[in-house]
């Protein structure tokens, strides 16, 4: 089972907390909104990805199974 990070841009307020916790896969654009790597999350980053998801104040960031 692989999981991918998905951001719901309607809910995302551009807090940027996710990018701090998972800089390997999330960067912020010039307006502070996350650019998310849509490839499967590698096992080594699994913990950080979960931390980023639970740190998102608006529940915009999710891990979806694919």
């Amino acid at each position, binding site marked *: 089972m692989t999981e991918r990070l998905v951001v719901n841009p309607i*809910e995302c*307020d*551009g*807090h940027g*907390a996710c990018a701090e916790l998972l800089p390997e896969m999330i960067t912020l654009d010039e307006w502070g909104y996350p650019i998310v790597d849509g490839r499967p999350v590698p096992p080594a980053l699994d913990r950080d990805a979960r931390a980023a998801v*639970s*740190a998102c104040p608006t*529940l915009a960031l999710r891990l979806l199974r694919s």
Partner: protein
Amino acid sequence: MLANVRGIDSTTALWYASRATGVVALLLLTAVLLLGILVTRQGRLPGLPRFAVTGLHRNLSLLAVAFVAVHVLTAVTDGYVNIPLTAAVVPLASPYEPLALGLGAVSLDITIAVIATSLLRRHLSRRVWRAVHLLAYASWPVAWLHSITASSDMRHGWMFALAIGTALAVVAAVIWRLAAAARDVPRAERVGLLMSAVHGAHGRERTTRR
């Protein structure tokens, strides 16, 4: 009240522990509320990353319930006055100070609901979670009133100053929060607003024809 005429001994230790943890819990809940408002307004704490604000908000709230738990258990175990355990969550269940303790129960109920839904946040819709979470604004004043009414010490001296301090801080933060809400541009109007802002940036639209 009673505390003034008693020294600390093995029988009164629980009573003192209960009051001390109660005061700390109020301070923690105040901090949690202020941090919650800071999260919503996307504020930062100096020198800390963004996720620290959310993290502190969350972890301090867990710490606060831990203190409330000790606060309740010590008050119940203490034999000096008779408080049933149910009084912790059921308002008016205590023969001793039913009103003051009732406020404490209400506040604890709300706080438990806020924390339980937050821990299960991933499984809830954002709407439901938020609706419950906003009850935090009700739980804090109730907790404050509980502190003031249950303990006469809180009505005098430095403890009173502390209580007033927390209230002022919360009122100020809530005003700051409402100011942001008032400035919130309705979704439908955001694009138009930004449009006029960026169009102004580099001079007005010029057209030249050959």
